[in-house]
């Protein structure tokens, strides 16, 4: 970057700051996309570029929403700078106080990336007070305050993300996360069933059908793509095709490296 000061750029735009902000936003997308594609671990210019973009056009909501999701996740999915993401969202809220989506996204970063349930609850509660805010913000605030089950909360957030966005990329990403969540939950439950079987029988089940029969499961458990889960000789439960669930954190073969995709984004 030749000019790093957002103020200087705003002055130099001679009042045509909207167009310059669009150019910088495109630069952010290209920068992030290129680095992400190359599995880069460093995103040094991302935060300054986003700062310039939002200073030039403080009402460019898409820059806050996507910007935070580029900044917050750990590399290689993102820049691993959740604090910068929160600064960005707070700046966005300051300039667009009536946009409830920004409070939702702020709470999302607190919950997903920082696991700070108290601040997430606070962000959702602030958002729920905005005129025309979606009612689920109040529910999310309550759920965060109660520190409810992780799967239920995550499912609720991704479902809300899916329902409240018209963007194809965001909706596709939400579906991917929901599918991976289902795998995580299934694997957790199946692993508990294996442990229970072992405690009862004094040995590990030899197959998934034996486990299903012994634990009263409705049939051989399958993942969202109808592929059966695999029971490994050491008692671990694994997903059939790990590449199909990019965000799954459980049921993956040891040493497995997920294939990162460009749509690895939050809302």
């Amino acid at each position, binding site marked *: 970057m030749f000019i790093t000061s957002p103020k200087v750029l705003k002055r130099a735009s001679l009042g*045509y700051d*909207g*167009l310059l902000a*669009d150019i910088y*936003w*495109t630069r952010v*997308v*290209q920068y992030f996309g290129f680095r992400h594609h190359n599995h880069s671990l460093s995103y040094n210019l991302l935060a300054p570029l986003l700062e310039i973009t939002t200073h030039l056009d403080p009402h460019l909501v*898409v820059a806050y929403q996507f910007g935070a999701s580029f900044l917050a996740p750990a590399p290689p999915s993102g820049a691993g700078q959740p604090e910068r993401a929160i600064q960005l969202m707070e700046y966005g809220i300051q300039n667009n106080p009536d946009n409830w989506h920004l409070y939702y996204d702020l709470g999302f970063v607190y919950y997903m990336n920082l696991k700070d349930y108290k601040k997430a609850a606070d962000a959702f509660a602030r958002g729920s007070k905005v005129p025309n805010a979606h009612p689920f913000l109040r529910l999310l605030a309550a759920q965060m305050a109660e520190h409810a089950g992780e799967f239920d909360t995550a499912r609720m957030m991704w479902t809300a993300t899916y329902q409240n966005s018209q*963007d194809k990329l965001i909706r596709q990403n939400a579906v991917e996360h929901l599918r991976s969540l289902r795998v995580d939950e299934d694997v957790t439950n199946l692993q508990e069933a294996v442990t229970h079987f072992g405690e009862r029988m004094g040995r590990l089940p030899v197959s998934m059908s034996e486990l299903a029969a012994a634990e009263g499961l409705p049939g051989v458990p399958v993942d969202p793509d109808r592929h059966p889960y695999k029971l490994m000789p050491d008692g671990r439960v694994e997903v059939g095709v790990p590449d199909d669930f990019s965000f799954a954190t459980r049921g993956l073969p040891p040493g497995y490296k997920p294939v990162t995709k460009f749509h690895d984004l939050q809302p």
Partner: protein
Amino acid sequence: MNARIGHIASNTFREAVRDRVLYNLIAFAVLLSGAAILVGQISIDIEKLVVINLGLTAVSLFGIVIAIFIGIGLVSKEIEKRTLYTVLSRPVRRWEFIVGKFFGLAGTLVVNTFFMAIGVFAALFYVAHKFVRADALILIALYFIVLEFLIICSLALLFSSFSSPLLSAVFAFSLFVIGSFAEDLRGFAGMAHGLTRWLATGAAYLVPNFSAFNVISSIAHEQPVAAQLIWHNTLYALFYAAMALSGAVLIFEHRNLKLSSAAKLRLLQALALSFAWPPAP
């Protein structure tokens, strides 16, 4: 408007068209259609914003460049080609000449803006597949841009009435840049003390406040424009353009347009040669 002003205005318009000024519309169309198609591929969720921001910025900047580069030559070119003497030898007053030139240039820019506006709306329809009520706000931004053109045309004519084309272009463009910082200048005047405060306040009110006319960014975000601002900008632009035009008329009225003896001789020689038959080898 009297008939003589109308004739000068229509001649100025025809001359601008003959000078291929409207060819800029091709560049504009390529720029806008390229952006409308490309941005969806290389960016996220700003297709409509880009069409509005880029479209209106291009309308504004193309128009400003045309206003300055044609405006500065309106008087000097007529003097240089000596066509001014033919015009003024008829019952045309000097103020009518200046006002006619102004309306001719303003008309050229309005026609240019009209075609560009069609392009902006076509590109908008291409990316959004429909029009919404808020899109009508673009018309307000276009109206403000036209008001901006009136001020710049009058300034270009003012400078062209006493200065060379090159200096007129420098003056007009500088004033456009300074005018874009008018709000900052007023802010600076508010913070300054003593003589600096007086000078800065004077300068802030003397330069045209172009920042008040730029509502492109807020309109791109579908933010409404206050009716008061529309009235203020209309009155301000008309008043400022009238003042600058009056200045141009005043200077032009007192300008010595008499030919020097050498120039007279050259003119007579040219006339004699044109009437001589058979033509000189």
